[in-house]
């Protein structure tokens, strides 16, 4: 039965809500903090910053990551930057404006109070990172530099060359290592969470596998924090790291945590197209390139001339043609859809005809090669390494790729899921980006959650549990560990013939074709037939070589894929159920004549939060109504 969820959002004036709320959160006495154990899963921006901050407060923290070091979490690959409403450029930026842009950018499917809190905290994140030694770009006077990013009309993006994510993560990683050194955090690298342990509706621990020895272990905590990132790898080919997976959030979902808006995914318009069937991942080329690059395809699909020899009147600059005022700088989802349409019409370029040109020739002519090199040299170099082509001489070829997922586990204003004691931070939760995330906002959210929200709200939760003993010596742990062992055995047991990757590619293609850039009821219905059939074949015919009690990368991949199979179905369910278009979710049945998303606020101004009912059972939808008290929902237009 559908229920209405309570997000516990405070009331009162928007700009005072977080302050008021914080003022009334309960505290834990400094001497009692060490009596609480908090388990943090994931060591990216959200996980590392939360672990370090909780440990500094005095809690006993255990942090887990599947990589060999917390420094390698995928936050490290973020290129562009991080937004903050500092208004250093005196161009009229403010907390309200950042809030407004983020709510509007999310196409009115996010929570106003959360987004305003995010905008408020953005300024403190920059302070914190600078104090840690993050080498942000600076001006000649020694003060911090900003740039405009992702079509914003103000310059509020802080950056560290094209490696902002790396430098922010290293800042958080160093804070984490400081606390490990002080004995406040125990780090478990090369360890993967395989189940959440829930007792009487409350998260009490996890089951994990040591990826080096294969050992299954149980860990008890007073609170469990999931900061395990997004699920773009359901598509197989995405810009995510190979190891990025949905297992932690999916296992939590199976244990009762509601999954919100799984169909809200972001397809980034500018990535390097696949070059063959061996392709293992896709590489993003920063959105900032569209500031100086012009997107085009030849008017004649059979034009085989090298791009430089195609005269201007034989080119279709389709973004500039369709969107005269925003041109090449239209938002990510609009750009991605237009590029896909052009390629689907057979006008794609490159050996596989699977990309469009992003051409810098005009900018080089206008500004000189040096200016372009100063702005993009590291990206041009990366492009050349991968493709063997030099973007100074021949246009880049680009194509959209799955990149970020706005959906995630449902959380209330305190970032706690409906499972008591289970907190979800960063990309793993759903709360701040609505149906579309703006550029340079992911890093901001991960760090806001970890540094400045969770340390307060987790303390508030723990204050009610003083004196409670935790132990793995309880039936819930024994049962969950046995189920995990059983599952691993089943994955290993098959005398199957097909590799894990071959199944993952096939699943990825189904999800990409029917639940990718554009969706429709017919396709989604078809996907909902294809996925369970393929899932059954997977369990029957997958081949996992190697032993269980040692490093076994095939077994790791198989377990993650098994969860992606179940998740993919939920994602298609949600996409089918949300019979409107919004942000990155374009239902072809609901678009304007120009192909713009048509929202249906009457019927769909809510968060869909799904409850697991078992494999082969339809999930149940619960709703969190969205109220817009401060920003009037409007329709985007980029004409």
């Amino acid at each position, binding site marked *: 039965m559908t229920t209405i969820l309570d997000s516990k959002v405070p009331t009162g004036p928007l700009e005072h809500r977080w302050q008021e709320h914080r003022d009334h959160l309960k505290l834990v006495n400094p001497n009692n903090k060490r009596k609480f154990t908090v388990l943090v899963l994931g060591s990216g921006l959200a996980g590392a910053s939360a672990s370090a*901050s909780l440990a500094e407060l005095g809690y006993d923290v255990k942090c887990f990551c599947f*990589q*060999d*070091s*917390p*420094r*390698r979490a*995928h936050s*490290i*690959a973020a290129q562009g930057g991080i937004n903050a409403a500092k208004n250093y450029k005196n161009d009229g930026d403010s907390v309200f404006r950042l809030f407004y842009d983020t709510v509007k950018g999310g196409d009115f499917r996010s929570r106003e109070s959360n987004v305003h809190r995010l905008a408020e905290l953005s300024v*403190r994140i*920059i*302070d*914190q990172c*600078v*104090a*840690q*030694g993050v*080498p*942000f*770009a*600076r001006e*000649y006077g*020694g003060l*911090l530099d900003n740039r405009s990013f992702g079509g914003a009309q103000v310059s509020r993006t802080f950056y560290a*060359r094209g*490696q902002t994510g*790396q*430098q922010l993560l290293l800042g958080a990683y*160093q*804070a984490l290592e*400081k606390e*490990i*050194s002080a004995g406040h955090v125990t*780090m478990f*690298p090369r360890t993967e969470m395989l189940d959440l342990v829930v007792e009487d509706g409350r998260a009490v621990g996890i089951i994990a596998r040591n990826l080096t020895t294969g050992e299954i272990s149980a860990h008890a905590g007073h609170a469990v924090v999931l900061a395990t990132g997004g699920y773009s790898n359901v598509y197989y080919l995405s810009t995510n*790291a*190979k190891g990025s997976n949905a297992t932690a959030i999916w296992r939590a979902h199976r244990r009762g945590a509601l999954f919100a808006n799984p169909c809200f995914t972001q397809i980034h318009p500018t990535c390097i197209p696949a*070059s*063959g069937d*061996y*392709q*293992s*991942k896709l*590489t993003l080329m920063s959105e900032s390139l569209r500031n100086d690059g012009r997107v085009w395809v030849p008017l004649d699909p059979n034009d085989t001339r090298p791009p430089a020899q195609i005269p201007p009147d034989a080119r279709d600059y389709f973004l500039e043609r369709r969107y005269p005022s925003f041109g090449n700088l239209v938002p990510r989802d609009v750009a991605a859809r237009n590029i896909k349409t052009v390629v689907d019409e057979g006008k794609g370029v490159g050996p596989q005809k699977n990309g469009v040109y992003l051409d810098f020739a005009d900018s080089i002519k206008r500004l000189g090669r040096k200016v372009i090199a100063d702005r993009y040299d590291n990206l041009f170099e*990366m492009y050349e*390494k*991968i493709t*063997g082509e030099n973007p100074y001489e021949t246009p880049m070829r680009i194509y959209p790729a799955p990149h970020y997922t706005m959906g995630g586990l449902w959380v209330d204003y305190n970032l706690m899921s409906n499972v008591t004691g289970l907190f979800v931070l960063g990309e793993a939760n759903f709360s701040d980006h609505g149906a579309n995330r703006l550029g340079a906002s992911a890093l901001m959210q991960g760090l806001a959650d970890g*540094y400045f929200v969770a*340390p307060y709200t987790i303390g508030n939760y723990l204050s009610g549990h003083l004196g409670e003993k935790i132990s793995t010596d309880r039936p819930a742990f024994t049962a969950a560990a046995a189920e995990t062992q059983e599952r691993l055995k089943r994955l290993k047991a098959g005398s199957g013939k097909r*590799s894990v*990757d071959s199944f993952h590619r096939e699943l990825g293609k189904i999800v990409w074709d029917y639940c990718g850039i554009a969706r429709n009821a017919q396709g989604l219905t078809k996907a909902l037939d294809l996925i369970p059939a393929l899932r059954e074949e997977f369990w029957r015919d997958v*081949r996992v*070589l*190697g032993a269980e009690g*040692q*490093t076994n*990368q*095939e077994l790791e991949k198989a377990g993650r894929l098994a969860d992606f199979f179940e998740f993919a179905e939920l994602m298609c369910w949600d996409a089918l159920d949300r019979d409107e278009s919004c942000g990155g979710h374009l239902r072809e049945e609901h678009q304007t004549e120009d192909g713009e998303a048509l929202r249906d606020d009457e019927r769909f101004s809510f968060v869909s939060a799904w409850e697991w009912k078992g494999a082969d059972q339809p999930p149940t939808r619960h709703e969190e109504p969205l109220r817009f008290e401060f920003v009037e929902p409007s329709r985007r237009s980029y004409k």
Partner: protein
Amino acid sequence: MDLTLHVWRQPGPNAPGKMETYEAKGINEHCSFLEMLDVLNGQLAERGIEPIAFDHDCREGICGSCGFMINGVAHGPMPKTTVCQLHMRHFKNGDALHLEPWRSRAFPVIKDLMVNRGAFDRIVQAGGYISVTTGAAPEANLVPVPKPLADTAFDAAACIGCGACVAQCPNGAASLFTSAKVSHLNLLPQGQPERFDRALSMVEAMDREGFGYCSNHAECEAVCPKEISIDFIARMNRDYLKAKSKGVMKASLSGGG
């Protein structure tokens, strides 16, 4: 193209290992080195042979997970390139390639081409941070940092911690890695209060982990995928010597008093 690969196979940390020879058939020149290994692993699995284990994650040259020796060179023949960004167009049909894990006493082999680089994390734990707690930071623009200084600090901070520097060094030294972190933080105004303690503790940690001593071969700089300069080693040594000569007392990192 077809390649002959001689690959180090070792089932576990304590098991003996040996080189095995495999033929990789029909490799496309546009695939990356790791994608070539994916293809080979697929071909091995077809024959019931367990796939070759190697570390990798982002596959875009920034996470620092991947890396092994290709014909004796860390990350292979292309300068400033990790193996995930190395593409097969730089090899030719019929090439014979020897793949071995990083060679260092401080990086024990876990399996095949995977090693344990936990020693790097422990070096960072010794002082590779600025002791600021969450919430204590002043306004970001309160302390100006001259741009050239910030840029040089960035050059050092670009290190991805892959371990190639150690693997290529004839002495198995970790000086390039350690000096990059020491320099990143010691160059910045925010890093000054702990500057000398940092240099002292991190150098000591490096020795404790069993890494060798630097004798200026500069092999590390040549293979570093992020072009970290050995100038940083000189900078670290200067701070270390100053710290020694000043007899700096190790300040308690927990503060108080």
